[in-house]
């Protein structure tokens, strides 16, 4: 992230299909929020302020939410054109997240369970942002992790390349000195295939990781799925584990077999 020294970077925040939790994480990103407001200018963020234009230009566009409708694709492509850097924030935008669970069924079947009149619905399968535009990094997490968010803001201000975490939850779990919940207690833990960033939150609280940070690059989903089967989980249970977060991502495909 070069050329950004000595001027206040302009940030645009766009929300698509999601819970808005990442935007809350950003706007209410205590205790650093006041410093961020001093150092950067948030020029477009509907949940924060009524002024501002979506037309940019932006030094960084932060995108939250999965893409589930055509107008979002069109707007996203325009945002890409007027942004120096475009970064998906949070699991929905990074890997499809929770909204992409619907991809495991026929789209129409899912819609019919909710609406009698589906003629007004224009939803398509939920996809991550990088399915439609080039991205310049990912701030993972559900909600997005404060560590990577801070790294992004600092990198922007220093004009350096951000160093986002790219290893699995197990690394953080070992560093915390936790006893492995999978090996020692036989809990189906998604830690070995899930990107780090949460500081092994679930295993630290006596439960297996459920994968909310989304897939780690080069995850060995097949090996973990085999381990789950060996532990006595049914095929459906295993498929559910690998589709709760990141259904569209290729890294967990091997665990999603019917």
């Amino acid at each position: 992230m070069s050329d950004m020294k000595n001027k206040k970077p302009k940030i645009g925040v766009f929300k698509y299909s999601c819970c808005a939790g990442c935007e809350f994480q950003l706007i209410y990103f205590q205790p650093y929020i006041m410093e961020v407001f001093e150092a950067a200018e948030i020029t477009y963020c509907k949940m924060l302020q009524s002024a501002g234009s979506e037309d940019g230009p932006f030094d960084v566009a932060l995108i939250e939410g999965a893409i589930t409708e055509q107008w979002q694709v069109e707007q996203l492509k325009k945002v890409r054109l007027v942004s120096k850097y475009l970064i998906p924030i949070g699991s929905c935008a990074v890997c499809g997240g929770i909204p992409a669970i619907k991809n495991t069924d026929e789209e129409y079947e899912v819609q019919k369970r909710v609406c009698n009149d589906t003629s007004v619905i224009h939803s398509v399968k939920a996809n991550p942002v990088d399915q439609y535009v080039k991205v310049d990094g990912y701030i993972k997490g559900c909600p997005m992790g404060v560590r990577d968010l801070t790294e992004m803001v600092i990198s922007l201000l220093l004009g350096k390349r951000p160093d986002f975490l790219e290893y699995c939850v197990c690394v953080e779990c070992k560093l915390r000195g936790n006893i492995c919940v999978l090996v020692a207690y036989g809990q189906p833990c998604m830690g070995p295939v899930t990107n780090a960033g949460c500081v092994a939150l679930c295993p630290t609280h006596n439960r297996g990781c459920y994968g909310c940070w989304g897939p780690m690059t080069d995850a060995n989903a097949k090996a973990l799925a085999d381990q789950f089967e060996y532990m006595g989980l049914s095929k459906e249970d295993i498929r559910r584990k690998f589709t709760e977060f990141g259904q569209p991502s290729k890294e967990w495909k091997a665990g999603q077999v019917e």
Partner: protein
Amino acid sequence: MKTVKKNIKVDYMARVEGETSIIVQLDHVPAIKLKIFEPPRFFEGFLVGRKYDEIGDIVSRICGICPVSHMTTAIQAIENAMGIKVSSQTKVLRKIMCISQIMASHLIHLYMLAMPDYYGYPGIVDMRSNFNKQIKNLIRMKEIFNELTGLIGGRALHPVTHIPGGFTAIPSNHAFASILEKLKKMRPLAKQVVIDVSKFSVPDFHCDSEYVALDGDGEYAFNEGKIVSTAGLNIAVEDYYQAFEESEVDYAFAKKSVLKRRFSFMVGALARLNNKFDKLQSKTKRLADQIGFKIPSDNPFHNNLAQSIEIADGVEQCIKLIGSNSFEDEDFNIRIIPGAGGSVTEAPRGLLFHWYNINRKGVVEKANIVTPTSHNFQNIEKDMKKLVTENKNKGRDQIRLLCEQLVRAYDPCFSCSVH
């Protein structure tokens, strides 16, 4: 006589949770539409086929501002469906977690979403120099409430320890003691919130509405109780479907919920105060009296004030609950028993309903979720129509601001409403 046939349109309303536009047709009889265009995510559709122990984690993602409410309501509904009984400690922890989240949500709403309207700013960023003290207090208080939610839940946003049957980890009593001290120091700040909000100059506007809330025995109910209203409704949670009816509308992705054979109603902080003011701590009642807040109030703009009063009360309730309990690790086992069940809780924005049918494998066969904003939807439009009618001689910009202020006073959550 000249008629004004012009529309007022707010394309993408700022400073609310989620995406909506407002369309006002200024005519003899104004027509109002809250066009909630945020895309639906079909939670009730894809929850079918998921297992009982994932539901809490999944539904917390309906909303980034009230994840604890969705999680708790779903878990309680599943427990009711499967006949699971929980310990009194679990109930206390749930209540503290619920109150702390509601307070954090109210703080965001009051200072970051609502306040800029009353002082003519586009947002809180531009208010930093003139409202520095208020913003510092807001951040301080929100930090403490988030810390409390996170202490019990593992993290404040999308907690992880809360599962059907109880909590996977219980914080140490030492950790509770340390946050108790912080809460005690927060008392004057919370009182200041009520004073700050009482300075908002809200319109003198009155609407005839039915106010619906959850009411429990002898306590200001959040997670358990009966559904009551100011017009005499008094039903058990199990009878929800007998009283409420949800329907689709063609211009919004959210559904509207009304009371059968009656009409629209209001839920949220004002509805809670109108129904159970007597159950507030006596200190809070005195504070409400000091600023001249009288119940019942039929001014929807007073929802802001009601939220601030709840913040003052919430601090006291947390202090009481933490101070009078000690907490220890608990074991619990879950047996899968098929069944159907629901739960109603008070989310920050009002009544929240979840219902699940669970089969013998522990898998969801049917899910239904009705959020506070669906409950309020019809009433917001009803009130806005009256507001526009009463102010139709004012300028278009003024009418637009009034409409936005009204919607914000309801503190809607459109992400929740379309789920």
